[in-house]
């Protein structure tokens, strides 16, 4: 079977299911008695098993199958959740992840799962047969529920009336094959046939659940139609991947309604939250009435008003859209400058309107590319759990603001630096339980990962209540490594000392561990973040913990800049690094040890003449008044001298391409309204 065309879908979905598995496993660890969670994991594992078996990845199918058995045993209370069991399940899901990634990278997805399978088998075998029987039967009751459909008064009326008018009413139970790949699609095909034949009165589970594939393998549909059962059955069986389709005339169990409800009431506490929703069939009278009354048009859509409708769009298409829009932004600029020249009121009006609309469009397109940081954060809980185990520490990871959104380009890059930071916090920050006890702290350390928006930036903060930065030790090391001189060391503030650990060639852990501290790490974090146009800072109190703050731009593709002119050449300075602009007199310039400086609001700021740096040539006579742009990199400032300011503008960031790699003090280029290219100044390179 040619499965290539499904590969992408398979990868995508398996990752989702594995992620769900992981999240639920962590949840289960906290609430080991909640069988609802087990059900969730079971469902994810089950789907994964089906998919991988279809795709021919037997090792994955094999492992998930065993995992499923164990989960089933837990679900049926044959075994209870212990941390040993969870460890094995965790490990299994990790192995599964590795295999999926292997497939994604073009591998075969094969891996030796023998030892894990044996372990899972052992767990499964260690069941205690007592007390299981009852609950198992109860479980069965829940799962066989769809067969005994319960009709409310309205439905009964509709069905009775239809039968009076010569229609047949059938209960149709469709069972999909275990390895069915696209359950929702099959459901849809069945529905399509049924809607042609007659009117759907009721489904179990509800249509919404069916569309979201939130059902095992079987669903029941109640239909009034003029066709007879045999025809209908043969039509439906043409849909592939169906196991079987049973048709039975509707038989009211109206009398049993109360008893059924009572039975459910008994079952519900045991059953999963989800199960309860699915089986209890929350009444949807409005939809049903619509479906019943509007005979001409089948109102299936009435029931499918799921809250969030989404489609998956290939990211390449979004990139193409973005590129096209960038072109539009450039032309918009061009149009604006033409309109300003021509002074035609109608043209002005139209241009203004277009500017407004394209502004809205820009927001929408940028928003479409926004991804919640959750996609990066969601792998951390498992990582921290594993690290804490390896290091024998107790750590609670709190995640706040995972829904904060960032441009996809930033998201792609931010993962690794965050991993570094978290590893650092877990390894170097949080102390061992014994040490914490002796310091009078709770044994369990807390690491908080926080994300939030502020202005045009997104902040990601990592806070731990660990040891903090030890000034003495950091300084000693920094002096040893020649990062600072002994004289300078005394004058540094605590914050400056803390920031030393971000400089290259630094590692304070006395003994190197597996987890972090190979001398690379934090400086890599720093340079990655700076290459993204971001900024990282540390706040630390010895003995109380540290706070790493990462500031990132919302988007990398359209930025605000200040255009400046130097000898007829136009350059763009990113607004994000500008503090302010000023005009200074020649006499205000001081000379300090080969370096011209100015006194800017009580701070000594070095003066950098951009015209010298960029060889634009200087004006023939030195001007009395100089225009300067005060820029910053972290805490450090610099005053850039230019000829004149042109103004502020939104521009589209373009790279200089791979031919010109690493040009000094330039971070890219943009195209101005007049079609000319302007270069973007990289302020970070100009400040030491």
């Amino acid at each position, binding site marked *: 079977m040619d499965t290539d065309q499904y590969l992408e879908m398979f990868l995508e979905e398996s990752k989702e299911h594995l992620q769900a598995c992981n999240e639920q496993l962590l949840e289960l660890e906290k609430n080991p008695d909640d069988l609802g969670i087990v059900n969730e994991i079971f469902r994810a594992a089950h789907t994964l098993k089906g998919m991988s078996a279809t795709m021919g990845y037997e090792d994955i199918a094999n492992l998930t199958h065993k995992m499923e058995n164990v989960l089933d045993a837990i679900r049926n209370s044959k075994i209870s959740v212990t941390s040993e069991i969870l460890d094995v399940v965790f490990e299994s899901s990790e192995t599964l992840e590795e295999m999926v990634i292997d497939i994604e990278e073009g591998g075969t997805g094969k891996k030796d799962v023998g030892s894990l399978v044996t372990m899972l088998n052992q767990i499964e075998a260690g069941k205690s047969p007592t007390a299981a029987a009852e609950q198992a039967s109860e479980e069965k009751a829940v799962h066989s529920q769809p067969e005994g459909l319960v009709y409310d008064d309205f439905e009964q009326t509709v069905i009775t009336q239809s039968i009076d008018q010569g229609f047949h009413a059938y209960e149709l139970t469709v069972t999909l094959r275990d390895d069915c790949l696209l359950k929702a699609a099959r459901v849809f095909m069945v529905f399509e046939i049924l809607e042609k034949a007659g009117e759907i009165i009721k489904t179990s589970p509800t249509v919404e659940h069916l569309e979201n594939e939130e059902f095992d393998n079987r669903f029941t549909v109640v239909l009034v139609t003029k066709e007879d059962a045999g025809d209908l059955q043969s039509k439906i069986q043409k849909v592939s991947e169906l196991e079987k389709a049973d048709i039975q005339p509707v038989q009211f169990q109206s009398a049993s309604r109360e008893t059924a409800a009572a039975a459910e009431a008994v079952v519900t506490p045991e059953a999963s939250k989800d199960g309860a929703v699915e089986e209890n069939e929350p009444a949807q009278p409005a939809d049903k009435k619509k479906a019943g009354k509007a005979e001409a048009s089948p109102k299936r859509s009435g029931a499918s008003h799921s809250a969030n409708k989404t489609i998956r769009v290939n990211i390449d298409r979004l990139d193409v859209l973005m590129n096209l829009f960038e072109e539009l932004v450039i032309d918009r600029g061009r149009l604006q400058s033409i309109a300003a020249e021509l002074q035609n009121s109608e043209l002005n009006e139209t241009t203004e309107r277009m500017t407004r609309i394209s502004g809205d469009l820009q927001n929408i397109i940028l928003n479409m590319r926004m991804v919640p940081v959750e996609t990066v954060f969601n792998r951390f809980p498992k990582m921290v759990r594993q690290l804490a185990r390896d290091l024998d520490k107790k750590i609670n990871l709190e995640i706040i603001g995972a829904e904060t959104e960032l441009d996809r380009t930033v998201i792609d890059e931010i993962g690794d630096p965050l991993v570094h930071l978290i590893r650092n916090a877990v390894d170097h920050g949080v102390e061992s339980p014994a040490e914490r006890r002796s310091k009078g702290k709770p044994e369990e350390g807390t690491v908080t990962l926080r994300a939030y928006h502020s202005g045009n930036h997104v902040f990601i903060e990592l806070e731990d209540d660990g040891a903090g930065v030890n000034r003495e030790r950091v300084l000693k090391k920094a002096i040893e490594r020649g990062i600072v001189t002994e004289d300078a060391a005394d004058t540094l503030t605590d914050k400056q000392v803390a920031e030393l650990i971000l400089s290259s060639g630094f590692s304070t852990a006395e003994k190197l561990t597996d987890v972090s501290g190979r001398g690379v790490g934090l400086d890599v974090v720093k340079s990655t973040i700076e290459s993204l146009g971001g900024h990282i800072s540390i706040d630390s109190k010895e003995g109380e913990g540290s706070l790493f703050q990462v500031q990132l731009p919302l988007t990398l593709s359209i930025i605000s800049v200040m255009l400046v002119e130097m000898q007829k050449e136009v350059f763009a300075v990113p607004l994000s690094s500008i503090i302010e602009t000023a005009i200074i007199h020649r006499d205000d310039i001081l000379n300090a040890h080969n370096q011209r400086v100015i006194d800017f609001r009580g701070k000594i700021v070095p003066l950098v003449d951009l015209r010298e740096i*960029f060889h634009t040539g200087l004006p023939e006579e030195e001007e009395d008044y100089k225009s300067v742009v005060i820029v910053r990199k972290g805490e450090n400032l610099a005053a850039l001298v230019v000829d004149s300011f042109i103004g502020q503008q939104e521009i589209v960031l373009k790279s*200089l391409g*791979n*031919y*010109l790699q690493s*040009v*000094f*003090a330039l971070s890219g280029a943009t195209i101005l309204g007049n079609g000319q*290219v302007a270069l973007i100044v990289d302020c970070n390179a100009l400040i030491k």
Partner: protein
Amino acid sequence: MTAGTENKMMKTIVFQLLDKEYAIEVDVVQSIEKLLLMTITRIPGVPDYVKGVINLRGMVTPIVDLRVRFDLPETGYDDNTRIIIVNLEDYDVGLIVDNANDVIDIPAGALESQPEVVGSVESEFVAGVAKIDKRLLVMLNLDHVLKPIRNGNSDDN
């Protein structure tokens, strides 16, 4: 260089620098632009043969003056001066040439390794020479002519 047995033709774009004719494969050429219609933005801190960047229909494209690259005397640009935009594997670059007005098929067998001396062009830039009728065409090795510029600023040296 072994002479190919089959009569395979290689389509090339021929351009002039000073009094010599050069050829590059047509496959790598994206377009040919008139230089005088373009505005070149100078880039500070790069070798002098990189004249700057242009806006090529929304793409920022670097421009290399082949005369300077080959250490030939520079003259001003005129109406005939062309920019040949070539697509290499990782990047696009525009080449400033004196004139570009011919497309010639070169039989694969006609390409010979270069003689010891081919004018002043450094030998690593030349992939071979072909003699077609009375014309001598120098095939360029663009990967060498257009090596990426790294740390092009003088401060790093």
